[in-house]
């Protein structure tokens, strides 16, 4: 076997696979077409075509640079492929007070505008497809509980924001007593030196971009009926 024969053979066998498994899907998915709403079933017209802007793009870069994708995924699988759908808050909420059942599977638009679809490598930490919605719900619950326990001593300045929950997690993932077991690494280098009495110091731009990106993770928006796989989806009359 000559070196020439060997090289050609290797290139052909790996190249063909690469062509069909990487290049072809890339060109087939890069130009996403908006999904139209059908008025008879969706009760609205127009198209489904979510967009992202600004700081979220920078945050996605920080996310990948710091390897968050090694432990956190961003994909909610259909029920035949896994149980993500039925885990609390992962796919959306089962009983959102305003919208009812907001759960849905990931779709291709969830990764639009990302340099890489950060679907992740392993699930050591929770899925982040809906971390923004989860944090908002958590902040509301925390504020309501605090308000009830404090009564008249409560003031709006004591409000916990969903962002502050994320900053706290990034600076020290084990700061919350119920999270002492967490193996998530701290990214304290994205924060200034802590001053006395400060539990979470001032954030640097990287941390703010990352939190902006994480807060944008609300992948439970209503989709057209053609992309809705619920058994009780609207079918029109």
């Amino acid at each position, binding site marked *: 076997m000559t070196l020439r024969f060997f090289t050609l053979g290797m290139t052909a*066998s790996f190249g063909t696979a690469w062509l069909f498994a990487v290049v072809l899907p890339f060109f*087939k998915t890069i130009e996403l077409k908006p999904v139209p709403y059908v008025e008879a079933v969706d009760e609205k017209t127009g198209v489904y075509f979510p967009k992202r802007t600004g700081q979220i793009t920078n945050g996605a870069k920080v996310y990948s640079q710091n390897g968050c994708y090694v432990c956190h995924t961003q994909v909610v699988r*259909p029920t035949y492929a896994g149980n993500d759908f039925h885990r609390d808050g992962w796919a959306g909420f089962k*009983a959102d007070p305003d919208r009812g059942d907001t759960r849905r599977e990931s779709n291709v638009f969830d990764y639009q505008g990302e340099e890489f679809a950060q679907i992740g490598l392993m699930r050591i930490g929770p899925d982040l497809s809906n971390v923004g919605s989860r944090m908002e719900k958590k902040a509301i619950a925390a504020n309501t509980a605090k308000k009830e326990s404090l009564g008249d001593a409560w003031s709006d300045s004591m409000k916990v924001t969903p962002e502050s929950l994320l900053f706290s997690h990034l600076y020290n993932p084990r700061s919350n007593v119920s999270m002492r077991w967490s193996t998530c690494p701290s990214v304290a280098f994205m924060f200034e030196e802590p001053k006395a009495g400060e539990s979470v110091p001032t954030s640097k731009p990287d941390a703010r971009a990352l939190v902006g990106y994480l807060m944008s993770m609300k992948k439970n928006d209503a989709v057209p009926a053609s992309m809705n796989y619920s*058994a009780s989806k609207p079918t029109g009359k």
Partner: protein
Amino acid sequence: MSQDSPSPSSSRPDLDEVINVTTAHGSQATAAAAREYRNPGADKEPLSIAAFALCAVMLIVGGAVLGKTSGALFDYQTSIKPNYIRDKAPGVADDVALPPKPILDLYVKKGQSLYSAKCNGCHGADGKGDGANYPSLVGSAWSTGHTERFSQVILNGLQGPTSTGKVYGAGVMPAQGGGMSAQDLAYIMTFIRNSFGNTVGDVVTAEMAQAALDLAAKRPNPSAPVTADELKQYEKDLPGEKVDPATLVDPITLQPVAAK
């Protein structure tokens, strides 16, 4: 004791020509080495290239057949199996119906967010206006009075004196009807009539609000704001079936639920 002769093609440097233990050890062959089996494939290629080619052809043909028959195997446009419908959560009740609420509460809640977007800027978060430029909605004879009159003020705007006869600094309220659906108008009207201390206690339904939109469209000069004079012809309630404000409805579909 048998011993293989060294391979004649010594120009090939591959180890496979000398991996027979006895050959490799040559003259130092011991009894232990001699007991090893001779490797029958030692001098051959690992596998004939024809066998590789045959396997490749079989794989390609097999893949092509699968792709053609299954339909979705190489379809990169869809990420979901054809005809996929979600399974219910195993073992637990998955269909959680939200607890029904009185229709009035829901309309007020929905109206609140619309109010913050459309009306808050002038009439204020407490509905009291500022007393000089923008009138108060609290206790106003028009906002708490006949629904038809109230609806025309919202939809068309208002010029000149308000219900108290006072002309406010802003002079004219711009029309809010642009792009407003009947349901939204119903939410806003119900909210204003039942908030900030107003306690009319009735629900303006979407049916009534639709009648209001039809009326506004029929005005002779639809782009001009209404005046106190014009409003005199609207001194009645909007037509439509009245709804008991305590009716329990589903918070999402807003359809009445059967009382248990």
